[in-house]
């Protein structure tokens, strides 16, 4: 009898837990069936609504920087696909200039390498870099935790999620990750076209064809990045050796992470050093700006593309189909 009661009791609590999870679940953008498995394990580390909201609050909080002026969102603004426009390289507190362009934060759950040189390999640990970087937020973990623990709201918010009102490096970082991992963009015109919901114009169709011919090796669908490193022939800048700084292998010098091209129309300026302002300039670079004989250049780009003016326009039209308005203007990402 007793054992039966216990069973019933357990069954009952299980039901309650299950129901709670449902209520708590955040509506992630749907992940199309043809996408590869994410690196982030959504099954064993599900995103809860509360965790997402807490991460979002942290992401927009300038209190994480030394002089309380700069938040993550200052350099990664939603309306620019979570990058910083108008600045070729990032601006930190007191307008200190960084050495690289802030990348977009899109579909990070599929990424194994972070930063232009892939120096960071774990998304959860990534925020320690901007927080402690002297030209970004110039703060310490001690300060951040002291700020959060003394805050009127954070301790109870953390308590609701982690069952502990003392905020630690671990709980702070995992809350922030709940937000960054949820920045999923999968509803561009391109995605709707692939699903068969909309039609491409003739121009866009031809652009896709050209893209598959010239660009797909490095920017393959559906994520538009291989997550690896390459040299795409942009003018050499000897102050930044890229991947070499991490691996110290000569053959890795001047290689940079291949970025995703999703929402690319919004994430100007382009490249790790922000050297191109307009998408037209990027296309022109690939078409005619590359020194095909440079020994660092990826072999994939050795051959001339010889795009006509028409074809350049087609390619541009295709790149514009990668804009996902439901991502760019998703109200749930906003503060």
């Amino acid at each position, binding site marked *: 009898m007793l054992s039966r009661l216990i069973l019933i009791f357990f069954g009952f609590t299980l039901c309650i837990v299950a129901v709670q999870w449902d209520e708590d679940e955040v509506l992630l953008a749907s992940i199309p069936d043809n996408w590869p498995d994410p690196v982030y394990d959504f099954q064993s580390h599900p995103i809860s609504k509360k965790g997402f909201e807490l991460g979002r609050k942290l992401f927009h909080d300038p209190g994480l920087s030394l002089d309380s002026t700069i938040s993550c969102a200052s350099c990664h603004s939603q309306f620019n696909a979570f990058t910083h426009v108008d600045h070729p390289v990032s601006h930190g507190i007191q307008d200190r200039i960084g050495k690289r362009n802030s990348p977009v934060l899109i579909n990070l759950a599929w990424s194994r390498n972070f930063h232009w040189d892939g120096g*960071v390999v774990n998304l959860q*640990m990534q925020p320690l870099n901007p927080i402690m970087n002297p030209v970004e937020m110039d703060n310490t973990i001690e300060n951040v935790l002291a700020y959060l623990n003394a805050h009127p709201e954070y301790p109870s918010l953390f308590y609701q999620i982690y069952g502990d009102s003392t905020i630690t490096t*671990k709980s702070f*970082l995992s809350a922030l990750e709940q937000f960054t991992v949820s920045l999923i963009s999968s509803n561009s015109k391109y995605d709707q076209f692939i699903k068969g919901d909309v039609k491409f114009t003739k121009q866009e169709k031809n652009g896709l064809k050209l893209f598959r011919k010239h660009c797909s090796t490095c920017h393959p669908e559906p994520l538009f990045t291989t997550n690896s490193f390459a040299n795409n022939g942009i003018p050499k800048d000897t102050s930044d050796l890229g991947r070499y700084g991490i691996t110290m292998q000569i053959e890795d010098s001047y290689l940079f992470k291949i970025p995703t091209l999703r929402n690319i129309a919004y994430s100007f300026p382009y490249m790790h050093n922000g050297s191109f302002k307009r998408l037209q300039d990027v296309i022109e670079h690939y078409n005619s700006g590359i020194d095909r004989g440079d020994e660092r250049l990826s072999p994939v780009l050795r051959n001339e593309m010889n795009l006509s003016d028409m074809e350049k326009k087609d390619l541009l039209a295709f790149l514009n189909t990668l804009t996902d308005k439901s991502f760019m203007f998703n109200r749930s990402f906003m503060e």
Partner: protein
Amino acid sequence: MKQILYIVFILWLGSVCAQNQTEVIFRLKTPDNFTLETFKFYVGVAEDSTKVPEYHLIDLIDGDSSFMVKKGRSFYLLYGTDSLSNVSGAFEGALDPINGMYWTWNTGFINLKIEGNSSSRNKIEWHIGGYRQPWTTSKWIKYAAEQLQGKKLVIEIDVNRLLDQSEVYGTTAMRPTQEAHEIFQSFIACLSVK
């Protein structure tokens, strides 16, 4: 009454456990003409070298330099950190990045940190880490049951010998490289059980 019994029992249990433990103590052989400001390293304890060990941060200048292990049983120490922990999310305890033993620009732990000044030698700043093959900076060492009969196991670090390596490797090391790998090996060679 019952509570008092409990307390007595717990105290007794504690004392029994303490008797069954050996304290592993790290000690620096005093360096000549050298003022160390920092001497920290990670060490993990495990029953065998296939396990993820339990980590301690040894701080020989102003922190903990010892921990307890089971008496009379062999065990393994991992000097440095295992590669999986280097690429995982945040940890609490010894591996918490708040301890300043973590590189944020090139994911991974600083397994050994030595900083100091001398009149004869230059300022030394060695932050030694790296988990990628072949320039790893960690090493498993087995300690046999016979070494663990007493209350204490003292492991001494011959700092002079280690610092002499600055003539070969230079006084600054800040990234995972071949030099870092070799400095770490010298560190291992400078450990001896007293």
